């Protein structure tokens, strides 16, 4: 199985530890991981701001970098969804279509493709799981609370395999954190308030860490936590799953 690691631009630049954990975890599970080195960005920041027409460069680059793999795995639900829904390339549309089918967010790849049943990880903390909206409603890696359908959560299923980890319940299991790409600055007041309330829910329920399959949400919540000088930390789900006994 030939897997390409897709590391979103902001993860590459600001949260390399999450990408490293993703790579190491996949390798531990016996996957041959390639990192196409000319990758940059999925184009979502432009597209969600209404500038999808400026994403041709990003799209072509993405197709060039990620064609020919069995799977493309990404530690971000949001970027994965963007590729799944919006990757087009007029000159190489066939390859783009193929990539759209092969791109997976990390937790769904672990559950659906690798069918992981156990992990040798250890993380003795109280953890709150933040469902990113794009992972939840876009990729359906968990069941959203508004739908009348059986409940499930792939990230929670994996976190349950981690020794010592206690998932804390939340008052609102899948309310949005308010990051929303450029929304976080265009609608600064609402964005911050949403983030503050989300963080508060985790803190109230005793979380020591807030985790998620999406770092963009975590980056936003981390900004708020650090401003509040809180002891609560954010951590990408890959870092927990890859965390072994010290």
């Amino acid at each position, binding site marked *: 199985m030939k897997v390409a690691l897709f*590391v979103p*631009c902001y993860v590459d*630049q*600001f*949260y*390399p530890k999450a*990408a*490293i954990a993703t*790579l190491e975890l996949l390798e531990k599970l016996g996957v041959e991981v390639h990192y196409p*080195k000319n990758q*940059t*960005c999925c*184009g979502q*920041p*432009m*597209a*969600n*701001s*209404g*500038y*999808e*027409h*400026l*994403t041709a*460069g*990003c799209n*072509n680059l993405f197709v060039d970098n990620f064609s020919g793999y069995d799977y493309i795995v990404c530690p971000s639900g949001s970027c994965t969804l963007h590729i799944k829904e919006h990757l087009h390339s007029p000159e190489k549309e066939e390859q783009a279509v193929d990539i759209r089918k092969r791109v997976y967010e990390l937790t769904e790849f672990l559950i659906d493709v690798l069918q992981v049943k156990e992990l040798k990880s250890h993380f003795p903390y109280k953890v709150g799981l933040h469902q990113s*909206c*794009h992972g*939840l*409603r*876009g990729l359906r890696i968990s069941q*959203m609370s*508004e739908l*009348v359908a059986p409940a499930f959560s792939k990230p929670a299923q994996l976190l349950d395999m981690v020794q010592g980890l206690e998932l804390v319940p939340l008052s609102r299991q899948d*309310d*949005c954190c*308010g*990051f*929303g*790409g*450029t*929304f*976080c*600055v*265009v*609608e*600064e*007041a*609402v964005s*911050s308030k*949403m*983030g503050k309330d989300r963080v508060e829910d985790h803190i109230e329920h005793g979380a020591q860490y807030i985790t998620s399959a999406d770092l963009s949400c975590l*980056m*936003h919540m*981390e*900004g*708020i936590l*650090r*401003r509040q000088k809180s002891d609560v930390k954010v951590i990408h789900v890959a870092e927990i799953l890859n965390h072994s006994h010290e």
Partner: protein
Amino acid sequence: MSNATGKSHPQLAAVFNQDEPRVDWHDETLWWIRQKRDVQAHKLPEWELLRETASQIKNNVLSNLSTYLEQFEANAINNGVIVHWAADAKEHNQIVHQLLQERGINRMVKSKSMLTEECHLNEYLKEQGIDVIDSDLGERIVQLANEPPSHIVLPCIHKKKEEIGDIFHEHLGSAKGESDPKILTETARQHLREVFLTRRAALTGVNFAIAETGEFVICTNEGNADMGAHLAEIHIASMGIEKIIPERKHLGVFLRLLTRSATGQPITTYSSHYKKPQEDTAIHIIIVDNGRSIQLGREDFRNSLKCIRCGACMNTCPVYRKSGGHSYHTAVAGPIGSILAPNLDMKKYADLPFASTLCGSCSNVCPVKIDIHDQLYKWRQVIVKEGYSPASKTIAMKAMAFTLSSPGLYRSGGKMGRLVFKYAPFAVNNGLNPWYKHREMPKAPEESFGEWYSKRKEGKQ
């Protein structure tokens, strides 16, 4: 009465957020309704099939609308109802005025109709010297406060009972400082009963108009539409062209969805079916287009016309909950309003499709499965292409796209500088960076993943 401030959603939302306890109260109230909706929905194992069925019925309606409208009109006329057509808000308002003038009526009672809010009927009639009293309690409250409704189902959800007490004390003579909802409601009941008994004209909205029979259905909990209509000599019912459903039996789908989605009740107290006028009275229906036929022609956005005005998308929307209905500066607020409004005036409402995180909850509570968040995304593309986005944003986006299209430029940002993120939302331009107002910047690590990976590769070799 409408927001004539010219302010955009982010500006109005920032003002709303200056009073944080109030934001919390607003958010909790609406979330509670969302939870009530969940409880009702989960009681029906067939809920998702119901939504799908309703959505398909509406597809059929939108694909045969002209036929259904003509069928509805013919049947309504046959039932003794008089039918009018209004191309826009102005014509609608003029028709109402003329109907009143013909009878020498200068006072009218009105039950809830978001269409008349959209048409600004009250302001128009006031200018013509006609007194209109809104009879839905929430609408009456905002009317007395000289404000538009902030929610299509819960018009005064932004008002605290103490504020309502003050309004009632000033206008309806309730005791000073009285804020008990029971007592305030009783005060309104006495006041409005006198209104119902003395108004010769009543205007109502329409929830569903049935092509097959020519009847129309109005849903209320208070009974105000019926009190007004049955006591008046003329009942004017205003409906948008999209209110049509093909057959009576389709009500068996929509009435199961509407109130469960709206307020978390299994059905409204009253679901009234108006088919023929009472003896010696008249029913007039005004069928209004006001931009709807244009929206029907926009392939990406026509599904917005499926809306049955339940308000579930507002209650679930975290942005609506934390910014308040008035921040949307349009008659229909929230996610659905944000995809309807740009059709009417793209420039004026260019901000609304951006007043969303695209979280997608709206689309999944919607009882007729409108792809609301996808339409928000698509409106953004249209608004930018039509040139209604700020020039500074376009420059930043172009620079960002240029950098991200080139692996070389992207990498040259180097550590600490992270040049590429000069244009990223969470690291915009320094200076007056909105990110930094309530959030710390992410810490730049020693090396990027790309750099770490190259080193590891070298080490392995």
